[in-house]
């Protein structure tokens, strides 16, 4: 299948999720969204979709093959990038969700997510520049002084400069508390920054003239650990007397990556010659707290990266399975070979991909909707939405990344030996996907965040809220006439998850940390399996209600029901196994010693 004809994401799915499952139109009643309507949502989706298919997708393979170069201390990126960057900025994805005061149009997060997913599916690295710039500018918008906003946020939101997140250091990746980059105050309002960063994506390129690094550093004399870290805007070039001059940020190396190859990740040196200036964002020592406040948004975006990448590969596989002829149906001695989609095992692979991809989008959309309500909903609903968003975030980040990787591998499998060649796209999507389990907190870190922090927060209120939401969905699915056995299975699994969570929480309170967290990975897997089952039940119910009597939508109805059935019958039974591992604190690897490996 040629790249140009891959739809990337099924338009009908997005329409169904937005309007039939997640009721996006009702968001127009929320404070600040009143000026929107379904028409604006649809026109925006349409523009972004076309941009993804016509401009971003054709550059995907060239960008994967023609890598950035490190030349004379600067990074040279793919020549198509400046044009793509301009177009993405012009269409409004950079500032779409931001208020008018900073040049945005305040579109709901939910709609922005579904639109930008197409750009991610088309060319993850090209969209990466937008994602990073939005993240950096938003941090300054939320916490920076007016001066810092004017100097650094404004040019980013205008698309003149791009942004980065400069957190990681060679010895401090997951453990940001250990960063050692320093910031020395001066009398002129800025700090002198010194230190090494690694893996900083987008820190140098020739897409725009300048880059603003949002860097974590320690002010001299600050307390150790997480409480002594501050956030700084450290531009590559600094504005001085109306000109941009070097700010002593040097590229120490270009990292050779297996995916996201259009977006250079760099080793950086701040202050090689002692003249790297950084401007404090917000208050001293609050850097990590600021980062954490923006974390839901950033992590959910990684989840969308995952769902989008799995979706693009799924569509490649789907088309291939319809076209590739190989073998005959069981028992058929006929002369003609049949398209491989006729084989049960190929259908299994396709349905599994569909369940993962569409389940991920539904979960992410649900999280985005909670974010919208948490920000702009009626006062009475905000707190609950916040609890649910916090709880779902580590799952919405990890499930699409981990299971998306599995879906990506299945897309290769559907292609047989051809999938293992670079003539076809699935291998590239799989390489891209892998990053999503690593950056913005590895999956392991997410699992501890979920079990160690999120589900036990506020005396278990988030989990109770989730259980109520699932119960509501089960009731609605029953009323819509969904298969009673599926409804029962989800109901029972929820009870199991709630009871094991209480048990683990009690262990934690009694000081048995290993007993509580030793199986955090299995716990995350279990929870993700449940919330995705919840999404599939909601989709099945909405599809029945909406499409039952529509002759042109029967394939969508049956496809949705089959995927819901697949997920609940084949995955939900694992929940009791996983719960049992948590309950017994099964100790094979807990007791394993380093010299056993």
């Amino acid at each position: 299948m040629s790249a140009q004809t891959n739809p990337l994401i099924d338009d009908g799915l997005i329409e169904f999720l937005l309007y039939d499952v997640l009721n996006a139109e009702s968001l127009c009643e929320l404070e600040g969204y009143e000026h929107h309507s379904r028409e604006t949502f649809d026109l925006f989706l349409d523009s972004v979709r076309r941009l993804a298919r016509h401009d971003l997708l054709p550059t995907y393979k060239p960008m994967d093959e023609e890598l950035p170069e490190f030349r004379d201390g600067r990074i040279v990126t793919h020549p198509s990038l400046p044009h793509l960057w301009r177009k993405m900025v012009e269409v409004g994805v950079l500032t779409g969700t931001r208020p008018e005061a900073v040049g945005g149009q305040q579109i709901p997060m939910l709609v922005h997510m579904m639109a930008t997913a197409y750009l991610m599916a088309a060319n993850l690295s090209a969209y990466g520049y937008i994602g990073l710039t939005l993240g950096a500018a938003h941090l300054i918008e939320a916490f920076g002084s007016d001066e810092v906003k004017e100097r650094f946020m404004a040019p980013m939101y205008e698309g003149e400069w791009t942004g980065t997140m400069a957190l990681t250091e060679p010895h401090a990746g997951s453990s940001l508390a250990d960063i050692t980059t320093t910031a020395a105050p001066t009398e002129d309002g800025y700090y002198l920054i010194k230190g090494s960063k690694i893996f900083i994506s987008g820190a140098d390129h020739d897409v725009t003239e300048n880059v603003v690094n949002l860097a974590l550093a320690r002010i001299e004399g600050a307390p150790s650990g997480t409480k002594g870290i501050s956030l700084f805007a450290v531009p590559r070039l600094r504005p001085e007397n109306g000109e941009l001059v070097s700010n002593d940020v040097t590229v120490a190396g270009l990292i050779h990556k297996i995916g996201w190859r259009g977006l250079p990740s760099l080793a950086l040196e701040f202050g090689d010659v002692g003249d790297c200036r950084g401007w404090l964002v917000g208050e001293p020592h609050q850097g990590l707290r600021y980062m954490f406040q923006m974390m839901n948004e950033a992590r959910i975006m990684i989840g969308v990266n995952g769902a989008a990448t799995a979706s693009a590969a799924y569509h490649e596989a789907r088309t291939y399975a319809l076209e590739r002829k190989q073998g005959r149906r069981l028992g058929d001695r006929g002369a003609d070979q049949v398209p491989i989609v006729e084989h049960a095992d190929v259908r299994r692979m396709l349905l599994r991909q569909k369940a993962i991809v569409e389940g991920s989008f539904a979960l992410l959309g649900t999280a985005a909707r909670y974010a919208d309500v948490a920000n702009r909903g009626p006062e009475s609903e905000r707190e609950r939405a916040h609890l649910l968003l916090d709880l779902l975030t580590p799952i919405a980040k990890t499930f699409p990344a981990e299971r998306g990787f599995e879906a990506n591998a299945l897309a290769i499998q559907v292609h047989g030996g051809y999938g293992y060649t670079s003539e076809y796209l699935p291998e590239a999507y799989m390489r891209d996907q892998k990053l999503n389990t690593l950056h913005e907190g590895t999956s392991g870190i997410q699992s501890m965040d979920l079990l160690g922090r999120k589900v036990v927060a506020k005396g278990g209120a988030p989990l109770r809220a989730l259980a109520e939401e699932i119960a509501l969905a089960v009731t609605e699915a029953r009323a819509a006439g969904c298969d009673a056995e599926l409804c029962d299975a989800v109901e029972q699994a929820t009870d199991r998850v709630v009871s094991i969570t209480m048990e683990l929480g009690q262990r934690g309170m009694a000081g048995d940390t290993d007993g509580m967290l030793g199986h955090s990975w299995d716990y995350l897997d279990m929870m993700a399996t449940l919330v995705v089952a919840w999404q599939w039940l909601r989709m099945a119910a909405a599809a029945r209600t909406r499409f039952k009597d529509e002759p042109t939508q029967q394939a969508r109805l049956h496809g949705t029901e089959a995927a819901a059935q697949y997920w609940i019958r084949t995955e939900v039974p694992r929940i009791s196994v996983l719960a049992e591992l948590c309950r017994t604190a099964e100790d094979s690897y807990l007791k394993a010693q380093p010299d056993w490996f």
Partner: protein
Amino acid sequence: MKILVSIKRVADPDNASKLKVSSDGTAVTSEGLEWKMNPFDDWSLEAALRLTENAAEKNARVGEVVLVSIGPNDEHTQRIIREGLAKGAERGILVEADDANLDSNVVSQILKAVVDKENPDLVVMGKQAADGDSNVAGTKLAARLGWPIINYAMKISTNDDGKTLEVKRELDTGVATVKVTGPAVITTSDRILQPESVKNGITPADHQYAKLEVGGRYASLKGIMQAKKKPIDQMSLGDLGIEAKVALKYTKFELPPARSGDTTFVESVEDLVDKLHNTAKVI
């Protein structure tokens, strides 16, 4: 400069495989189809927008583009007008009419009535519509108006606000350059999307538009929000004093024969030539 641009909603040509012919064979049914702006009109809208803006000043508008769409007064027609407004046009006109009562004869009559009301300096139209592919409405309109018609424009330049224009036309045999004094009707070819195809004497002459892959510019989110405040006038044929008299009658539609998806691999160039000559009979 004031430009009238006609836009038609057509069944999404990318979904042509979903097209069906009615059982008596006299009509194409539109059930379950998605509607979008005729892609040819999208190109002409792009040309009109370039003629009426300063691209060097963030596409600041320096002229006026009025959109007119003829069709049922439903969400699909309204949506393509809104899309055009979101891309930059200033106003829309929706002339309500039933598809069954429309052919190029009636359409050109309606457009003439709108031109008489609006007095534009130019009418820019798609060379054809992606559904009927008839390629006559522009020429008929020009004939009714007694204006010059320039079909298949691939380059348009003006220096005096559209009073005189130099237009390059794309022909099978090459490129013809014509000079015309407005008002005139112009239809465009896809080459009009090229980075330097339109010069309006205001956008600096060396300005290069971004390369467009398949259609005109995308509506931006900002443009979409601004479009909500732009007016769409609705009128009926009666308001324009027109009685719809369809002159063209469709007698039969047939779907093209299904294409066989078989792929044949060839061993050599000779083999390929042989297959093309003897099996496919195309050379």
